[in-house]
């Protein structure tokens, strides 16, 4: 479970829900060791095994090393959730190369690294598996000021759909979830969510009238990773309170 450590984060909600359903969890994040330790303790309190495996998903060697450690400590991986992501807000004309490279290396190349490194041993061992990637409502809803972020998420759709076709004969499903607005760490620096009035205005755009709880994304992932989701692959499951409906 990459990008899992942050409190209020989607990854943490997914990790909690999977642990409650009986999964042992390899908690990954690039930092936030204290928050990761808290999550590991929570999962262990449920009677499941858990450990923290820090790694930067954009670094392929680190990702390969992480999977070796996970397998040695917790055993073969059945489910991989590629969730780590970063965001930036810049007008299209002002996007810098530095911002572009940071977002693409984590959101897109990071997901490729994680999914490929996780799926190769599944296929080699003839073991079925589940892959779930966190994309975004940006996949279908272009947001101004977020061209690179939105593009990375759309790129994930292309990756997921192709992997779904390629890995289906190996019994591996590949899907992505589309969170709407979550009051997560990644959104704290959104320039349009800094005042109560701005938050209120954003809530008015969401038919459900509230942000998503990370655990609601977690329950969607549980569905995709359970036997209920065995015949679901290449799919995009939006969990956004109706945010994009009627708009895009």
């Amino acid at each position, binding site marked *: 479970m990459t990008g899992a450590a942050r409190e209020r984060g989607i990854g943490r909600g997914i990790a909690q829900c999977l642990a409650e359903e009986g999964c042992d969890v390899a908690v990954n994040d690039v930092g936030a060791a204290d928050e990761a330790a808290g999550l590991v303790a929570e999962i262990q309190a449920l009677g499941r095994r858990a450990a923290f495996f820090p790694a930067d998903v954009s670094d*392929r060697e680190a990702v390969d090393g992480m999977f070796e450690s996970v397998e040695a400590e917790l055993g073969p991986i059945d489910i991989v959730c590629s969730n780590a992501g970063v965001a930036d807000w810049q*007008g*299209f*004309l002002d*996007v810098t*190369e530095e911002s*572009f*490279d940071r977002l*693409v290396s984590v959101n*897109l*190349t990071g997901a*490729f690294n994680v*999914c*490929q490194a996780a*799926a*190769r041993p599944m*296929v080699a061992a003839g073991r079925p598996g589940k892959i779930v990637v966190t994309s975004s409502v*940006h*996949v279908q809803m*272009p*947001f*101004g*000021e*977020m*061209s*690179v972020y*939105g*593009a*990375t*998420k*759309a*790129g*994930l*759709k*292309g*990756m997921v*759909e*192709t*992997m779904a*076709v*390629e*890995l*289906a004969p190996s019994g591996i499903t590949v899907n992505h979830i589309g969170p709407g607005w979550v009051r997560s760490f990644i959104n704290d620096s959104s320039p349009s969510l800094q005042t109560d009035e701005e938050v209120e205005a954003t809530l008015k755009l969401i038919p459900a009238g509230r942000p998503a709880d990370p655990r609601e994304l977690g329950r969607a992932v549980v569905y995709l990773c359970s036997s209920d989701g065995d015949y679901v692959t290449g799919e995009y499951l939006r969990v956004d309170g109706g945010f994009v409906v009627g708009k895009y």
Partner: protein
Amino acid sequence: MTVSVHGLSPSLAAAVTDAFQAAGDGTGEAAGAAVVGALLPSGPDLLRLEQASWEGAIGVAREAFFSLQQAARSLVEQGGGCLVMLVPAHSLRTSRGCGAAAVVGSFLTTTAQVAAVELGPEGVRVNVLAVGPLEGEVDPRTTESIPLGRLTREADIAAACVMLAGPQAGFLSGTVIAVDGGYAVTKGVGGSPFAAADA
């Protein structure tokens, strides 16, 4: 009407430039147009794709992104114009071995759509052409999965670029048009017309 081209093969660049010249003032838009291409070929399955090949595909997307940005800046300074992004139709219909093309095509489609949102008020229209399998670049058997019975020609792309730059497309922005003879709406086995033959 001036057109600048970025990231196109020499022959496609010539086809596009020639088509704009042939259209002359008939394209009707005073400011100008830019065509940015990122037409990646298909390759190995994503599980077998080497890291260097992935990085190469990302490099193509990067170059196209900043070419589009540069062209957009120039058109904004000129008071408006038309941007066309050429991506592989695998962004609409993926299949085995088309992962890198699908990723880059989807990436640049959203890039163009966000640019359309932001640059509309500046008089800049941004649209996407999803280009089908190209004549001379793919196995001719691909033709079997194309309703119009042939592969995409450079002239098809050039004509669509001229159309998008012209007055008839003056209210089109942020849209995706498939120039693929219907390829994107077909359903080959496993998404690939060769899946059975090559198995």
